[in-house]
């Protein structure tokens, strides 16, 4: 199904690495699609599975979770829990009939503005192929 629609993507970033990476994309004027809304948290470890599920329940076509690279976490180990949790949540998505590809985890450092933009682009293209979230009204 390649229906022409505008995917809605919600992103969670940590304050230290990936949010700064997104800022750097701006500073460097690296363009990416407007389909994304960012929620800033202090650490990706704060991203509760419920936040992700809540986003899908309210119509997100995709959710992007981003944080510092493993080993670089500002809070030492926070992102290790994120990785674990995102994987579990992917399984949960499958059980309710949503494609696990709608949920993506990426480590983006404060100096990877280019990567942030690329990930958003890839994700928007990918979700366009998968199609609308069936829960979206």
């Amino acid at each position, binding site marked *: 199904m390649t229906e022409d629609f505008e995917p809605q993507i919600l992103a969670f970033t940590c304050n230290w690495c990936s949010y700064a990476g997104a*800022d750097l994309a*701006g500073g460097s004027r690296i363009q990416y699609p*407007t389909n994304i*809304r960012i929620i800033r948290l202090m650490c990706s470890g704060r991203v*509760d599975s419920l*936040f992700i599920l809540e*986003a899908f329940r*309210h119509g997100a076509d995709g959710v992007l979770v981003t944080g510092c690279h493993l*080993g670089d976490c500002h809070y030492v180990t926070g992102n290790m829990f994120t990785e674990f949790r995102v994987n579990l949540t992917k399984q949960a998505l499958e059980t309710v009939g949503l494609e696990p590809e709608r949920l993506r985890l990426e480590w983006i450092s404060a*100096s990877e503005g280019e990567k942030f933009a690329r990930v958003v682009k890839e994700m928007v293209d990918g979700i366009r192929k998968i199609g609308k979230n069936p829960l979206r009204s």
Partner: protein
Amino acid sequence: MSSKGRIGVYICHCGLNIAEVMNVNSIVEYTASLPNVFITRDYRYVCSDPGQALIKNDIKENDLDRIVVASCSPRMHETTFRRVLEEADLNPYMLEMVNIREQCSWVHIGEPEKATEKAKSLIRMAVVRTTLLKPLKMEEVTTLHSVMIIGGGIAGLQAALDLANQNHKVFLVEKEPSVGGHMAQLDKTFPTMDCSICIFAPKMVDAGKNSNITLLTYSEVQEVSGIVGNFHVKIRKKPRFVDQIKCVGCGICATKCPVKCTSKFDVGLGVRKAIYVPFPQAIPLVYTIDKKHCLYFTKNVCKICEKFCEADAIDFNQELEIIELDVGAIIVATGFDCYDPSELGEYGYGTFSNIVTSLQMERLMNASGPTGGKILRQSDREKPKRIAFIQCVGSRDKRTGNVHCSNACCLNSIKLARQIKEKHPESEVYVFYNDIRAFGRRFEEFYSKAREDWVNFIKGIPSEIKEDPLTKNLIIFAEDVLSGYLLEVEVDLVVLAVGMIPPESAKELSRILHIPRGTDGFFLEAHPKLRPVGTNTAGIFLAGACQGPKEIPESIAQGKAAASSVANLLFTGKVMIESMIASIDQDLCIGCGLCEESCPYVAIILADRKASLEEALCKGCGTCGSLCPEHAITMKHFTDKQVKAQILAAFER
């Protein structure tokens, strides 16, 4: 008054940065229609003095109790606007910033309509979140008047001296047996042609004598915990096998020691003994036994040094010591490593005997170096008549992974070239370069002088070097890009101007201190313009080449600047810290212990099947909160309720 507050929303044009891309009027109109929004204003620069005054005035006149500023990244101005609220007697946490510049107008330049819509929904998310914000108390902690400086090169030493002279206690940690760093290895400095060690040694001596400075040489930082004002540090002091207090530095041990090994200080060109000081002016002047080469440690024989030491300082049983310190601030001044050109096959470094790096050339030039200041070839100990410098080795070169320019190599090679010409005016000297970056004070004149001295500058980086198997001479193949000619130049010695790369320790230190590195591997400053020596972790500062390649005067300036930042921080003896931390509802807690397990700061302790929080240790990551199966943990300022409201608002229409 509504229970959810009276919100003032301020939309910044940021000159044209925002206003050029999106339709501010339409955003204002939309925002004004949102529930609980009492005032909506747009302004050219909200961060400017009149912009700030506008907010303060509105808070007072209209009784606003929550503020939303839609402008640049909160990383830029959150502190600015929090202070505005504070000055208007509003709790600084009743602020939410919406990033419509870095994350909207600047990344959607060609899509004005979509960018405007995105800005509207970002503002909607913020307004909903703002209605749920709660005032938080800023905590004040007292700061210790002591500083740890990591790295005893020129930048670290300068910072240490400045702070010590301002009466702060300084702990200077250096991993080598002596302070000094790279500057101690240089022969001369450019463009002044000062003798490097002559101008540097007095500073080293000062640092050794200053009663406010504790030198911890041959030591490495193992662990850092705590926060600004109160860091707790563990340092590994490696065993020297020489008692630092007893050793008088007479050197008889080294004279008698039968084992010769290559000297790291002379970059592999000279020899030292197994018991050694790296260089004669070492501070502290205390000998160190190199366990890897010492006959006692390798073969259980010898102990000659012990026999001859009149001070009775040799102690083969010395053990690794862990030193624990409490300091108020930390300066990182770990410098750089020189790029290792062995991996560049086309130049044959390591294979051909008459190719040296620029740092090796410094040692060959130096009167106390391995050749006593005579420039000699490795293959036949002959004086080279034709010498070529190759620039940008391991810099400005994607293949090596180092795209950055190393800042000092152009002038350093010119300096070495001029020294050669001074010593041996008949020599032929070539410099193969990309661009000559003579940017500093008196650099250009220094460069012109070299050209007047008949140093040949050729624009073009050689593609290959071959060795004549008989003479061991080197043939350089290069294209002179100015003339287009293909050149073959035969020389007796090649000097590779190796670039500066992040030190090997950077990765580990980045992990220990939780300070990020850039794509070039050097430590990332908090802001390139506003805070070039700050980091994102309060109380930790950077100085010198660990932040990026730098020459000596700039490293010194940064050393002083970092010292100034520390002095500012410690001056009042107090510092305000964020109060965005966790809080535990013990009634809901079932004592599962997941939170305790997840906390890297040991801030949560489980006792009697109830978790309790040590607030001073919590740094507010929120990981515990999202793990708690009973939702008994609330992460202040990022509560479940606040985040969920944002999520919901993202998909509202």
